[in-house]
């Protein structure tokens, strides 16, 4: 069975047992709009230590060829872990209020 996500299912369409019967469905839910604080990444200051990448609970740090390329705001919830884990000498991530 494949679950539908484009519209809300009726009770007769749901798989029994409250389960989600395929993996990686969280990719389809853009949770970035929960955010009130936004991390802003500075490519000039970044030393690509990947501390933020390994610490991000939402896998929202984008990496290509072992280099950070930015932050995926579709999934970043603005928790600030990336900014706090970033080595003080680099300070490549700053948290700013979303409305700014």
């Amino acid at each position: 069975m494949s679950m539908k996500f484009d519209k809300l299912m009726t009770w007769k369409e749901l798989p029994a047992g409250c389960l989600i019967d395929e993996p990686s469905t969280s990719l389809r839910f853009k949770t970035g709009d929960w955010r009130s604080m936004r991390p802003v990444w500075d490519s000039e200051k970044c030393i690509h230590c990947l501390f933020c990448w390994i610490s991000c609970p939402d896998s929202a740090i984008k990496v290509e060829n072992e280099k950070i390329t930015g932050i995926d705001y579709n999934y970043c919830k603005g928790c600030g872990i990336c900014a706090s884990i970033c080595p003080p000498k680099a300070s490549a991530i700053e948290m700013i209020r979303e409305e700014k």
Partner: protein
Amino acid sequence: MKTVAKTGNEAMAYAMKQINPDVVAAYPITPATEVVQIFSNYVADGEVDTEFVAVESEHSALSACVGASIAGGRVMTSTSSQGLALMHEILYIAAGNRLPIVIALVNRSLSAPINIHCDHSDTMGSREAGWMHLYCANSQEAYDSLIIALKTAEATAVPAIVSTDAFILSHAMERLEVLEDSDVQNFIGEYRPRFSALDLENPKTYGPLDLQDYFFEHKRAQIDDFSKVLDAYDKAAKDYAELSGRYYPALEEYKTEDADVAIFAAGSTADTAKEVVDDLRDQGRKVGLVRMRMWRPLPVEQIKKALTKFKAVAVMDRSDTMADFGGPVFLETRGMLYDSEEKPLITDYVYGLGGRNIKLTDIARVYDDIEQVAKAGKIEKLITYLGVRGEE
């Protein structure tokens, strides 16, 4: 088939041995301790293949059962009273996730005052958790019911509680017939779970958060699945009857064909009431008994058909709703009959709380009362607390 002498607890433990579940997680509590104590002996002696998980509470016991069931195992446990109360939140989780766990339960009153003896307040307090409930009248039935309940639970993905009356059944030795291990195994068949967390080819998410957008739909689907339990149960009970010669309908009628009045009761009291019915029948009195065996889901149509033919019915409740309106069986029975054109006058007898003995003379007095109600055509006393000092 062989004849043995077993207590209710021994009978349930023996049924568990023959079922040979994949996982049993349990915590001891009087008077159900023996069930898992005996079962753990089977484990230690290598007579079953079960992974026995000794946990630190009933909350943990049922939680471990939930995990094992999600992993695709055939899972059982046993408890009583406060233990079931401590399992309460997990009862809903097991049912909501459609995990066909079976509990061998011994009915015991809930504290306070602290008491270890029989009443039905424990399971009656859990009747909205989404589990099938079966109340047994003797050890034979407890043995048979566990096997039928497991088959029904796995066919419908609805978990089941099979209960006996504390000490009256759990610790009283009776003669019973048991099946061969192979007959039990053939009857229950290999368990084919609808899903398994160990199915690595088809990863799924189990028990996710479900908010305003989907919770209601999931509950509605669960309620719909519950409506299929009665038919699945009856099929399993009939198949079991072919194997054993013993048929257990969801609702049992005893000498009701021409009866004017009847008692509606559950558990060991119903078997006691049969003796009274026989005595009164010898005196030419038209009395009968309807035994409530399944109380979740409610066999509504069967109950309506059975009870509407009498002039008066006494419901025997071994617990109270604290609603100032009698016991749960009374309340639900009156609700079920509300739309019937012909319906009996129904009174309630709350009895036997905390293991208070119910005597043949107590039951005979109830028949005296309802014959009077039937004759007068009206109810003088709606709710009676039977056998308590200070009450007429």
